[in-house]
């Protein structure tokens, strides 16, 4: 079994790494690959950035919802709630 892995495998392992589920052998292989392969390193970094921005957005949505419910929809729902 080769010590070197492909980019396909490295990008696959990056999810296991994020979840802390790499075994020792996989860790070594991943670490070696990522240090010699800028695109795979970017892949990991960019996915982390995507994840962080989703979390940030979810928090922001609570304080300042970017979308507003349309007035007509609001009205028709309010009628139903008032009937209750």
């Amino acid at each position, binding site marked *: 079994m080769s010590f070197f892995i492909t980019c396909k495998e490295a990008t696959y392992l990056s999810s296991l790494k994020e979840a802390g589920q790499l075994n020792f052998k996989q860790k070594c292989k991943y670490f070696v690959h990522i240090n010699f392969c800028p695109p795979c390193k970017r892949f990991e970094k960019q996915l982390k950035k995507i994840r962080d921005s989703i979390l940030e957005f979810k928090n922001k949505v609570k304080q300042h919802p970017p979308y507003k*419910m349309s007035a007509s929809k609001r009205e028709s729902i309010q009628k139903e709630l008032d009937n209750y």
Partner: protein
Amino acid sequence: MKMNVLDPKNWLDKYADYFVSLAMLKVANRALAEDIVQDTFLSALTHIANFRGEASEKTWLLSILNNKIIDSYRKKDVLKNSTDYLTQTSDSFYSNFFNKETFNEAHWKIEKAPNDWLPEQEAKMNSTEFFAIFSLCLKKIPEKLRVIFIAKYIDELDAKEICKENEISSSNYWVMIHRSKLLMRECLDKNWFNV
């Protein structure tokens, strides 16, 4: 213990925009998002007797909203036959991104290899415009993969929970996460970072 009570007359003011925004993230369709929220409130009204006052009103409504959103984007048995699906589409999927595995060299296709993102575009990844693009990219991901991507990245569930809830094996899970990440990154790359 303080018992929580429901106050339907104020639901719209308190939650309407927040819920519509949450739904938009996953369904990327304004009319559908509003329908889902309406459905949530009406369904809450009809099940008002089930509210025991242990959770807060907001938590209770959010759980109904989440179920309604899930119902809207996934069919009941969407993850059935995942193994067949993943096997049958494997070659055609990966050959989009990587060169053929000769001599163990399945490296990135040159035009698909991730490049650095522009810092000024990265800085705007918390904007509403970015999330409009994100939601559209989400919609483009094949349904089976999308369900898993949303569970992990938006609902923040861990691998075990997702496998259990969707009745998929852990090896299928990791393959689906791998694929959905490749697709999402590429779509954002094209539509947000290289415009």
